[in-house]
Structures are given as C-alpha cells and as structure tokens.
C-alpha cells in the first residue's frame, strides 16, 4: 500500500521534486530519531547529576524531554517541507535536499545546546539550595549598624 502510494505520487509528477521530498522526510526523520535516542541514552547521567541524584525525577524529565524533542523536530520538518526552490533535475534535487537537511541539523543543534543551557541553570540553582555540610557552633547576636 505504502510503496504503491509513493510510486503513484512519484510517477504522477514524474518529477525530481517529489523524490526530493521523500528523501528529505526520510533523512530528517531518521536523523531526529537517532539524535533523540542518543540524547535519551547519554543525557541520563547528566540529568541525574543536575537533579542532585534524584533518579526517578531524572528519568521522568528525560522521557518528557525526548517527547518534546520529537514533537518540535518532526513538526518543524513537516512544516518546512514545501518551502524553498523546487527541484527540476538531479543537481537541483541534491542541492535542495542538502539545504533542507542542513537546516534541520542546525535546528537540532540549537535545541540541543538550549537543553544543555537549561540543565546547567538547573544545576546552579540546585547548588544554591544545598545546605552547608557542617552545623554552626554557636550563635552570635547581630545588630544593625
């Protein structure tokens, strides 16, 4: 059913443009999945540390982040599908495909660094609320002066 649909669309237009779109969707979505899986796997320990060892919370945040990541990226990929020049031959098809995939990669990169920035903020906030490791020995009375 699916290959037939694609073949029909491709055959109908007979054009490089449709093949470019198909290749674009395939490459972009695979890249998104790969990046999301990598982040999910390697980001866990970073999150656990940012959340001061609270593992269940870290796992939950990790999962929610991956869901948001998929939504934003696949949303972006589908929205950006029709914009840009239309391919007329193999050369323009490759050029357009490259531009579009490049844009997706840059957006993925920006999101990635934005996530890291948020985590480091969280980590800093957590250190501000960590209690001192030792107890004071005695009180002094402070007067304003």
């Amino acid at each position, binding site marked *: 059913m699916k290959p037939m649909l694609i073949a029909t669309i491709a055959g109908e237009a007979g054009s490089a443009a449709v093949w470019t779109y198909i290749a674009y969707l395939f490459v972009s979505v695979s890249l998104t999945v790969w990046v999301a899986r990598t982040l999910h796997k390697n980001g866990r320990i970073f999150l656990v540390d940012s959340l001061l060892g609270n593992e269940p919370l870290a796992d939950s945040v990790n999962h929610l982040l991956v869901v948001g990541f998929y939504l934003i990226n696949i949303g972006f990929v589908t929205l950006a599908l029709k914009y840009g020049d239309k391919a007329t031959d193999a050369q323009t098809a490759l050029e357009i495909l490259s531009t579009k995939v490049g844009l997706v990669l840059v957006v993925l990169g920006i999101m990635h660094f934005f996530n890291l920035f948020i985590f480091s903020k969280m980590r800093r906030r957590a*250190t*501000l609320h*960590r209690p*001192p*490791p*030792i*107890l*004071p*020995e*005695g*009180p*002094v*009375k*402070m*007067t*304003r*002066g």
Partner: protein
Amino acid sequence: MKKLYVFYDAQDDFALRSYAWLVAQPPLWPLEFIPFQASERMARFQGIDDFRRRGPLLGVGDEGGVYAGPNAFIICLYALKDYQEWSYRLSAPMFLPLARRAFELLSTQGRKFSRQMERLDDPKLAWLLEYPGSSSAPG
C-alpha cells in the same frame, strides 16, 4: 544562607593570604570581610569575641551561626562557586582535622592543582594532606 561574614586576623599571615585569595574567587553568595582589628564592626556581632581564639579565620552566616576552627575553612569553601564541592568532601570525619591544611593548599596552589587533588581517592588525599611535600602516596 544568603550571606557569609568572614572574620580574619589582619595580623596573621595565613589569614591575610586567605583573605586575599577568598576576595579573588567568584562567590555563590555575597561575602563580607571584617578584620578582628575593626572593633566597631566587630561590636555589631555580640559574643564573637568568645570564638576569636579558635583560629585566625571565623565564618558567620546571616542567621548568626558561627563556624570556628576547621569549620571556618569549610564554610568559606562552601560559599565559593568553584569550591563548594570541596566543602562537602572535606567535612567528612577523615578530613576535618586536615581542613586547614587542605584550605591552605587549595588557596595557594591554584585551580589546576585543586583539580588534580580532586581526582585523588580519599586515602591518597588524606596522605597528601597529612604529609605535605611527600610526592608519592603509599600504594
């Protein structure tokens, strides 16, 4: 804690060096430095004189809790952005007697050295602090 008052003996070399180092570090909270010799400013803290002979450095939190002896060094490290981790490590019973020596090393040897120390495991670090100058720790 929102603020840390650091009292230091301005006639003590070690305290002066510590002061100079602490001022140069990025803090997590504002630090206010008060020399023991500034009697007017000292008078704002009733009862602080009882702690003066505990060492050349004292820490007082903004709620009035006093940290004296080795704890003074630890609370100073706790208030610094780059050294808060050290305050947790050094407050273990194994390191508390060595806290002054550790503080001295951290504050004189620079950031690179402190990162090297960070990589040592506990017994090796304790050895380094207890026997300064010996380059090799027991295997």
